[in-house]
C-alpha cells in the first residue's frame, strides 16, 4: 500500500520552463513565420512606395523625410497586431489554454512569458523592417527633391532625430504587439480582438481629420495610440507637435500596459 501510494516527483514549472513552453508554441505555430515575413515585406514595400510617391518641389515642401521613409509602419502594424492576437487567441479557440493553465497555474507568469516572447520577436523583426525602410528612403528620397538644396540633410542613422525615429518605430511595433496581446487576452475571441485593436488604431486619426475644432483635435491626437505613438517618427518640426516624440510613444506604452493589465486581470478572474 505504502509503495503504491508513492507519487512520482513532479517538477514544479519554473519561469524558464514557461518561457520554453511558450517559445515552442509560438515557434511551431504555422502562421508565425509567414506573418513575421509578411510584416517585414509589407512595411518595406509601403515605405518604398510612399518615398516614390512623395516629391518635394522648389515651391516649398513640408514633408518630413524621416516620417515618409517609415510610412510602412502604419500598414505593417496591422500584421504585427495579428501576431499579437494569435499568440493567445489560438489557445482559446483550440482549448489549449486549459492545458497551459493546468501546467502553469500561475496565470500571470503565462501572460508575462507570452508578452516577453511576442515583444522580443516583434522587436527583432521590426528592426529588420525599419532598417529596410530607412534604406529605401536613403535610396529613393534624394531623387525626389529631398536634397541639401532644399534644406534636407541626408537621411542617415548618424543623425540623432533619424536614429530616434528608427529606434522609436521598432519600439512602436513591439508596443502594438503587446497592446494586441493584452486586448486578445481580455476579449479572447480572435475576430473581436483584431477588430478592437484595428478600430483603436485607426479610429482616432480619422475623427481627428474631420474635426475642425483645433482644441478637440489636439486632445484626440494626444490620446490616440497611433497618432501619438507615431510622433516618434518626426524628424523635423518636432516643436510643433502636441507632445514630444518620447511622450507620444509613452502614450502608446500606457495603452499597451493598460491592455496587458486588463488582460491579466481577466485571465486571473475568469474561467478559461
Amino acid at each position, binding site marked *: 500500500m505504502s509503495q503504491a501510494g508513492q507519487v512520482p516527483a513532479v517538477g514544479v514549472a519554473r519561469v524558464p520552463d514557461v518561457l520554453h513552453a511558450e517559445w515552442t508554441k509560438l515557434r511551431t505555430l504555422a502562421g508565425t513565420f509567414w506573418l513575421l515575413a509578411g510584416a517585414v515585406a509589407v512595411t518595406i514595400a509601403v515605405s518604398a512606395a*510612399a518615398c516614390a510617391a512623395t516629391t518635394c518641389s522648389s515651391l516649398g515642401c513640408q514633408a518630413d523625410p524621416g516620417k515618409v521613409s517609415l510610412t510602412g509602419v502604419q500598414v505593417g502594424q496591422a500584421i504585427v497586431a495579428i501576431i499579437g492576437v494569435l499568440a493567445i487567441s489560438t489557445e482559446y479557440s483550440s482549448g489549449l489554454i486549459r492545458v497551459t493553465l493546468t501546467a502553469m497555474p500561475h496565470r500571470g507568469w503565462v501572460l508575462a512569458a507570452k508578452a516577453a516572447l511576442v515583444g522580443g520577436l516583434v522587436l527583432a523583426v521590426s528592426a529588420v523592417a525599419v532598417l529596410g525602410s530607412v534604406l529605401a528612403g536613403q535610396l529613393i528620397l534624394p531623387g525626389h527633391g529631398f536634397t541639401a538644396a532644399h534644406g534636407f540633410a541626408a537621411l542617415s542613422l548618424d543623425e540623432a532625430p533619424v536614429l530616434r525615429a528608427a529606434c522609436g518605430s521598432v519600439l512602436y511595433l513591439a508596443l502594438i504587439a503587446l497592446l494586441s496581446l493584452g486586448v486578445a487576452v481580455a476579449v479572447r475571441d480572435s475576430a473581436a480582438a*483584431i*477588430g478592437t485593436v484595428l478600430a483603436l488604431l485607426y479610429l482616432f486619426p480619422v475623427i481627428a481629420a474631420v474635426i475642425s475644432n483645433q482644441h478637440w483635435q489636439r486632445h484626440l491626437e494626444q490620446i490616440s495610440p497611433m497618432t501619438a505613438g507615431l510622433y516618434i517618427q518626426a524628424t523635423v518640426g518636432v516643436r510643433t507637435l502636441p507632445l514630444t516624440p518620447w511622450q507620444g510613444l509613452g502614450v502608446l506604452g500606457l495603452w499597451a500596459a493598460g491592455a496587458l493589465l486588463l488582460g491579466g486581470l481577466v485571465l486571473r478572474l475568469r474561467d478559461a
Partner: protein
Amino acid sequence: MTTVTPFRSQAGPVKGGFRQELHAEWTKFRTVRGWIIAMLVAVLVIVGLGLFAAGGSGSSCQVSTGQSATGHNPASASTTCPGTTFPVGPGGEPVTDDFYFVHQPLAGNGSITVRVTSLSGLLPANVASGSPGTKPGLLPWSKAGIIIKDGTSQGSAYAAMTVTGANGVRMQWNYTHDTPGLAGSVSAASPRWLRLVRTGATITGYDSDDGTHWAQVGTASLAGLPSTVQAGLFATSPDDQSFSQTFGGTNGQGMPTQDTAVFDHVSLSSAPAGAWAGGYVGEANMPGVGGYHQAGGRFAVTGSGDIAPIVPGPTGNAAGPTPSVITIYLIGTFAGLVVVIVVAVMFMTAEYRRGLIRITLSASPRRGRVLAAKALVIGAAGFVAGLVAAAAAVLGAVRLAQSRGQAAFPVSWPTDVRVIVGTAALVAVAAVLALALGAMLRRSVGAVTLVIAVVVVPYFLAATAALPAGAAEWLLRITPAAGFAVQQAAPRYAQVSALYTPASGYPPLAPWAGLAVLCGWTVLALGGAAYLLRRRDA
C-alpha cells in the same frame, strides 16, 4: 438465397427548403447575445461619432453666457459664429458674391451689349511661399463682362455673360449655372461681343466675335425678378489657391488676385440713358482694389473676388471655415463598420470553430443555399443597423449643428435620402463581403484583418490624406472602399477651382458607381465562398 435489401428511408426530402434555412440562420444570429449587442454598439458608435462631429466642430463659435453683476444669475446664452455666415444664393446654397459693378437701373425689358477688347490681371508672385509682390497674369476663372442683377445685395439673382482667363466666353446665372460660349481668350485682335436680353423673367445671352453675327449661348429663367434691375459691367477674380500635398496632410493657401477688363461699344437699351455708378457688391478680396475708368465710350473695370457657389472642403480662403456637409456626420460609419465586419466574419467562422457547420450542412446539404441564407440574414441585419444609425446620426447632427448656430451645407432631400440609404447599403454589402471572406478563409483573424484592410484602411488613408491624392483616388476606385463614395454630398462645380480630392470629400467615383465596385467585389467573394464551400470538406 435471400437477398438483403439495404434500408432506404421512405421519408422524402424536407419541403420548404429555403425558408427553413433562412429561419435557422436567423435563429443562430439572434440568439448569440454578443452579436446583437455588437450590432447595437455599431449603431451607437455611428450616431455618437456623428453627434461628436457636429458638436465638436464649432471651432469658430464662442458661446458667451451673459451674467448679471452678482454672477449668480445666468441670463442669456448666445452663440456667435463669425466666419460661418455666407450669402445665400437663390437656390439656398452658400455663395461668394464679391465683384466690382459699374451699373445703372434697367426698367422693364431691355438689353445690354458691349465689346470686350482686353482682359488682364495681377497674380501674387508666389502663393506657396506667401511672399508679397505680384506678377501679371490671369486665373482660369478670372471673370469680366456684363451682368443683369436683382439689385446690388449679395446673393441676389443674376445672369451674366463673361469672358474668362482660360475658359472662353461663358454664360453664368444664379451662381450654379454655367454654359460655354465662344472659346479662346480675348484680345484687341480678337475681341468678344457680349449681349444680354431681358424679356420678363427670362434673360438670354448672346456672343459674337464681330458684332454682327450673334450666337445664342443660353437662357436663364430668374424667378421673381423685379421690373427694375441693375445692369452693367463687372470684373472679379478669385483667390489664387495653392495646395501643397504632403504626406499626411494637405495645406491650402490662398492669395487674392485682380483683373481688369476694357470695354467699348457699351449700349444699354434704356430710355433715358442714366448715369453709370460704380461700387463693390460685397467687398474686394484684395483690399483697396477695384474701380472703373471711363474715357469716351471706353470703360476699364478692375475687380477682385468671385461670383460662384462655395465649395466645401479645405480652401485657402480667408473667409473662414466652410460649412459642414452631412458626410462628416457619418464619419462614425467606418468605426461601426469594423464592428459589423467582426460580427459578420464570426457569423461564419464560429460555425467552424464550434463544429456547428457539420450539423448545418447535414440539415441542409445544399451548401450554396446555406451561404445564401447566411448572406441574406447578415445583409438584412447590417442594412437595418446602418439605416437606423445613419438616419439618427444625420438628423441628430444637423439639429445639433443648427442649435449651435452653425451653417450646415444645404443639400436636397434626395441627396439626404441617398446618403442615408446608401450608408445602410454600404454596411449591408460590407457585412456580406466579410461573411464571404470568413467562409473562404475559415479563420476569424485573417478574415477580419483582410476585410478591414480592403474596406476600412484605404478609406482611412484617403480621409486622413496620408496618401498623395492621386494614389488615394486609385485606391478608392479599385478597392471595396470605393463604397464610401455613396456618402458624398458635397457639390462639384466645373466653374469653381477647388481641391476636389478624397480627403476633402470628393471621392473619384459617383455615389452609386462606388457602391457598385463594392458590390462587384462582394459578388466575387460570394462566388469564391460558394465554390470553396462545395469543394472542401467542412
